[in-house]
């Protein structure tokens, strides 16, 4: 099983567990470009290297963060982005733990980033787009290998 397949399997499981138990995965696809406005991200480093990201419209991100953090967030703010990046950190951590335990692949994480002025870049790498439909809207996760 490719690491990207393991990533998607873990992601679907963690989204159902921590955000929305009715979330539906749509088919993943390879994109030639990073979507515009994609800046919530985290680097995975070590034996397995990748960049992970999440993007979508502000309202979907707000509701995502409300569901995940179980906090009241009546409007979009930087806190929404921080909470979305927190989910990314949690999921990526559980993913690298699985790689370590099952495949002896040792990786770590850099702190997540959520600066709107620092968009994610791909630098000639493969861009996997992983779309999901939630009860409140759609979001796309990105995995760059």
């Amino acid at each position: 099983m490719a690491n990207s397949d393991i990533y998607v399997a873990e992601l679907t499981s963690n989204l159902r567990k921590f955000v929305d138990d009715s979330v539906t995965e749509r088919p993943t696809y390879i994109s030639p470009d990073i979507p515009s406005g994609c800046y919530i991200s985290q680097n995975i480093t070590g034996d397995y290297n990748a960049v992970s990201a999440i993007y979508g419209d502000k309202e979907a991100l707000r509701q995502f963060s409300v569901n995940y953090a179980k906090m009241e967030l009546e409007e979009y703010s930087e806190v929404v982005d921080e909470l979305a990046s927190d989910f990314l950190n949690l999921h990526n951590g559980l993913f690298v733990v699985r790689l370590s335990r099952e495949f002896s692949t040792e990786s770590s994480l850099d702190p997540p980033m959520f600066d709107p002025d620092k968009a994610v870049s791909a630098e000639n790498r493969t861009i996997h787009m992983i779309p999901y439909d939630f009860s409140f809207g759609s979001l796309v996760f990105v995995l760059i290998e």
Partner: protein
Amino acid sequence: MDIKDLKVLICDDSLLARKNLHDGLNKIGCTNVTEVKDGQAAIDAYKKNPVDVVFLDIVMPVKDGITAAGEICSLDKDAYVIMVSSVGTQLHLREAIKAGARDFLQKPTTPEQIKEALSHVVGGDS
């Protein structure tokens, strides 16, 4: 000493992680809790005001948790450091122990896990 008497320092760059751990501690009666956001701030806070337990995240900006654990334990050989992280890999566990951490909690944590970890502190376990 009782869990309720413990002085605790939480170090995590995540707002949500600090809130969840703080709420978990309050739920089990532990209310003397301070928060900081990175490893260097944890070292500075510990130097100024040593606590009974330090909960340290690993992945943080400025200074990571394992480096901070090493420095705190060098300052105070009796420091009780508990790593709390989503990155509970074998490598990180080994590094944490080497740095002097006494326990490691995999995120997401529950109040029950926090209570069990603190029971080792008051029970005198190492």
